[in-house]
C-alpha cells in the first residue's frame, strides 16, 4: 500500500482547538511511512476514560483507497510520536468539519 496524501488533524485537548495540515506521501520519510502503514488497520483507538486528551486523526489517500486512523494522548503509538510532533508543529488553525 502506498500513501499518496496525508491529512493530519489534532482536536480536543483542554483548549478544544482544531489544527491541521496536509502533506504529500512523498514528504514522508521511510520510517514515518512504515509507522503509518503498520497502524493502518487500527481504526479509532481512543481511551474512553480520558477527558481533554488531544485527538490525533490521520486521513490517508492510499493506493488501496482512503484510510482513517485516530489516537489520543493516551493511546498514541510510540512509533507515531515523532511524526505527530512534526505535523503538529506544521499545523495551523482550521475550521472543524
Amino acid at each position, binding site marked *: 500500500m502506498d500513501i499518496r496524501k496525508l491529512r493530519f488533524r489534532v482536536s480536543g485537548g483542554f483548549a478544544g482547538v482544531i489544527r491541521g495540515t496536509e502533506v504529500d506521501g512523498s514528504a514522508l520519510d521511510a520510517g514515518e511511512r512504515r509507522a503509518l502503514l503498520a497502524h493502518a488497520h487500527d481504526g479509532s483507538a481512543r481511551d474512553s476514560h480520558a477527558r481533554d486528551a488531544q485527538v490525533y486523526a490521520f486521513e490517508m489517500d492510499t493506493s488501496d483507497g482512503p484510510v482513517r486512523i485516530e489516537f489520543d494522548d493516551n493511546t498514541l503509538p510510540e512509533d507515531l510520536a515523532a511524526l505527530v510532533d512534526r505535523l503538529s508543529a506544521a499545523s495551523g488553525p482550521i475550521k472543524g*468539519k
Partner: protein
Amino acid sequence: MSCCHNPIHCILPPYILDRMAESDDPKVRAIAVAAIARSASLRATRTTLAQMPAMAAIPSAVGKKERLVYDLKNRGSSFLPGTLVRREGGAKSKDPAVNEAYDYSGLTYDFYLKLFNRNSLDDRGMTLISSVHVARKYNNAFWNGEQMAYGDGDGVIFTRFTKSIDVVGHELTHGVVTHTCNLDYKNESGALNEHFADVFGSLIKQWKKKQTAAKADWLIGPDIMAPGAKAKALRTFKDEPAYTGDPYLGDDPQPKHLKDKYTGGDDSGGVHINSGIPNHAFFLVATTIGGNAWDKAGRIWYRTMLALNQKSDFNQMVSMSTQSAATLFGNNSPEHKAVIKAWKTVGF
C-alpha cells in the same frame, strides 16, 4: 485463603455448567444454577468497572482530603503517575507546578465539601492524584479517569497548566462528573460534560476570589496564556468570542445559541465547541439572579449534574435544570424564571 466454598463454583467451564443445569438431579441443578448466577454477577461487575473507572477509585486512607502530587519529569503519559514529590501535609516544594497542583486540588476539594457536602470526587474521600511536567512543552492538561495530568506548555502559546485555578477545577470536575452522571464524552452529552467542568472550574475561581457574578471575568484559562498568544483566554461564558484571528488558535469556535451548534465530527462531535451554548445559559442565570454565582446558580447546576445520566442531551439538561430550580427555590421563583429565560435566550 480462598473465598470459594464449593469448588464447582470456581473451576467448571460454562458449557459444563449449562449441561448440569439441565440435569435430572435437583441437587446438581441447584449447584449449577448458583454457579451460573455467580459467573453472571462477576461478568456484570467487570463490565461495570470497565465502564465506570469511578468504581476503581483509590480511596484515601483517612477518608478525607488527601492529595498526592507526582513529577513525571517530562516523560510521556504512558509513564503516569511518575515520582511522588508531595503528599498531604508535606512541606512546600521549590517547584511552583507542584505547589499549584497541591493547592488548587485542595481548594477544589474544599469547594465541593463546604458548598455541597461532597467528600472528594467520588463523595467517598477519593485521593486526589496530580502529575505535573507531563511530556515536553506539552500544551495540555487532562483527566485520565483516575488522576489529573498537567503539561508545562510551550512557553509561547501556553504556560504551565497548573497556574490556573479554573483549569485545575475543570479537570477535577471531570472526575466529579465521572462519579455522578458520567456523561458520554461525545456530541451533546460530551458538550455537557465539558460544560459542567467549565462551570465548576469558574465557580471555584470565583469562590476563591470572593467575586460576585457581576464582578467575575467568566473566562476560562486566562492565566495559562503565554506572551506569544494573542488570545486573552480560551473560552468565555459571555456572548462574545474569547479570541479572533489568533495565529495559533484561529477564531473562537464556540456558539452561544442553539442555531449555531457545531454538527461535525472533530473534537468528539464538538464537545469543547458546543459547551459554549449551556455555558452562556449558565452565565445568564448567574448574572440575572445576582450575588455569588455559587450560592444559587451553582446549587441548581450541582443538583442537575447529579440528576442527569450518561446519555443526557441538551433538552434533558434544560428540563432538569428548570426542575432543579423549581425544587430548590420554588415554582415561579425569581431563580426558576431566570433559568427558563436563560435557556430561551440560547434557543430552547
